[in-house]
């Protein structure tokens, strides 16, 4: 079989003891996590999520220390894992509905298993006997059957491409100002919603977010956007906020009217 996903550490610029060089080799945080999980060399269902979280955070720290820019995705995941780690280390008193650290860990393990399963499936698929490579059609077909009622042919893909190209051509092109690397309010709101949804205790959440931002430019926008978004969410009763004094850490926790899964799904859908 032609393997598609081998753990080619070298290709990905990843070495056992000397972590991190080329983050570009990974397709997002989950891919990186899966790679790290595999290095534990156990069945994914017996994986140590705690160890995995630590490895991941170490990876991100390491990337920071050698000044590698990480995309926001990786940082959000790091923050989430840091939170997960704290939940796993300090068992919560059986309070209200909030998911336990174990539940969160098993959800993560499930996602890793599912991703791996899809990769295996893709490998099996691509190694099947394929038309045009292993299996061949009649080389000299004698007729083309038209089963359509219409004498004309076009696929939905043709139709949509034609339409998209036309509309784009006709739309007045505007001057686009160079894109800045920013967290929009929407981004920040969504990140907060995802993370605070399960926070029962006062947590210096912005600290998590900011801590992993590598570029100073991005730091400002992350602070500003998440702070502005958090104020809005406090107003809505989504979360509560506390600060002891000027320049001290800002603590957040779930508010009286927390965001439930359905609302969150809607928010995510709205962002497309």
């Amino acid at each position, binding site marked *: 079989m032609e393997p*598609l*996903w081998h753990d080619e550490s070298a290709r990905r610029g990843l070495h056992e003891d000397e972590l991190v060089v080329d983050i570009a080799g990974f*397709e*997002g945080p*989950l*891919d990186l*996590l899966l790679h790290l999980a595999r290095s534990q060399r156990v069945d994914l269902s017996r994986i140590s999520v705690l160890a995995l979280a630590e490895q991941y955070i170490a990876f991100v*720290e390491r990337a920071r*220390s050698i000044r590698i820019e990480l995309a926001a*995705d990786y940082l*959000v*995941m790091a923050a989430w894992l840091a939170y997960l780690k704290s939940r796993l280390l300090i068992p919560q008193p059986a309070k209200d509905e909030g998911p336990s650290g174990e*539940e969160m860990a098993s959800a*993560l393990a499930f*996602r890793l298993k599912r991703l791996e399963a*899809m*990769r295996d*499936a*893709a490998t099996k*698929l691509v190694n*099947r*006997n*394929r*038309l*045009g*490579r*292993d*299996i*061949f*059609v*009649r080389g000299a*077909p*004698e*007729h083309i*059957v038209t*089963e359509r009622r219409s004498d004309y042919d076009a696929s939905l*893909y043709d139709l949509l491409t034609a339409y998209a190209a036309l509309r784009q051509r006709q739309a007045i092109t505007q001057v686009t100002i160079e894109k*800045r*690397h*920013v967290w*929009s*309010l929407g*981004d920040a709101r*969504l*990140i907060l919603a*995802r993370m605070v949804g*399960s926070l029962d205790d006062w947590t210096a959440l912005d600290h998590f977010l900011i*801590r992993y931002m590598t570029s100073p430019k991005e730091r*400002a*926008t992350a*602070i*500003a*956007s998440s702070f*502005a978004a958090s104020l809005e969410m406090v107003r809505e009763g989504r979360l509560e906020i506390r600060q002891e004094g000027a*320049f001290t850490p800002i603590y957040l926790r779930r508010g009286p009217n927390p965001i439930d*899964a359905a609302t*969150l799904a*809607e928010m*995510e*859908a709205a962002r497309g």
Partner: protein
Amino acid sequence: MAEAQKFVPGDEDYEEEFSFDPRLEQEAERIAEALVFASAQPISEAYIAGRLPRGVDVGSVMARLKNRYAGCGVNLVQVADHWAFRTAADLSFVVNTDEQEVRKLSRAALEVLAIIAYHQPVTRAEIEDIRGVQTSKGTLDVLMEAGWVRFRGRRRTPGRPVTFGTTRDFLDHFGLEEIRDLPGIEELKGAGLLSGRVPSNLNIPVPIGDDEFAENEDPITQMDLEELGLLTPKAEEDD
């Protein structure tokens, strides 16, 4: 035997209650064989049925034909509700003429293809949820252009997101009779890995689009920040 036949489909005389007329059945087999053999594309069973003598069951005709070709160098294969003749897989090494190139797909595209195949109908958000990463532009595009993936419809949930699925060409290309023949699909289903939803409504961070803004949303500017008096960078933060 050929010269004996000269059968015209739809000929009234033959039409009535022949439950099994060997001559008719054999003629039906020859017609189906000719139809499918002549075409490079799979032919629908309905189309074949429409051209067989009346009173003949297309299903059993095709089954017999398939059986007859079972050990041959050319096999009769079923693709969804269509039929096609294809060279036998074990002869790949002789027939292979290295002139045709099978489309090379990127790792990401293959992964997306597999997710669509196993989870269909599936929305883009679900694909991204499984992969934990945004689908880059050009991935779905490539799969649709290859004719393996198509828009299927819309999910009946808020927002009515469009769903994706695979095409008959996909089945044909990968030698599958139907989606249920996907390797390991039953086991995956059994293991709950195709159910779509992560158990207990937990939300693990999913990718955010950092390259786009919502339609009605402007990026925050430096000026806004100063205005809000929010620029309180906590010095250079520890480590």
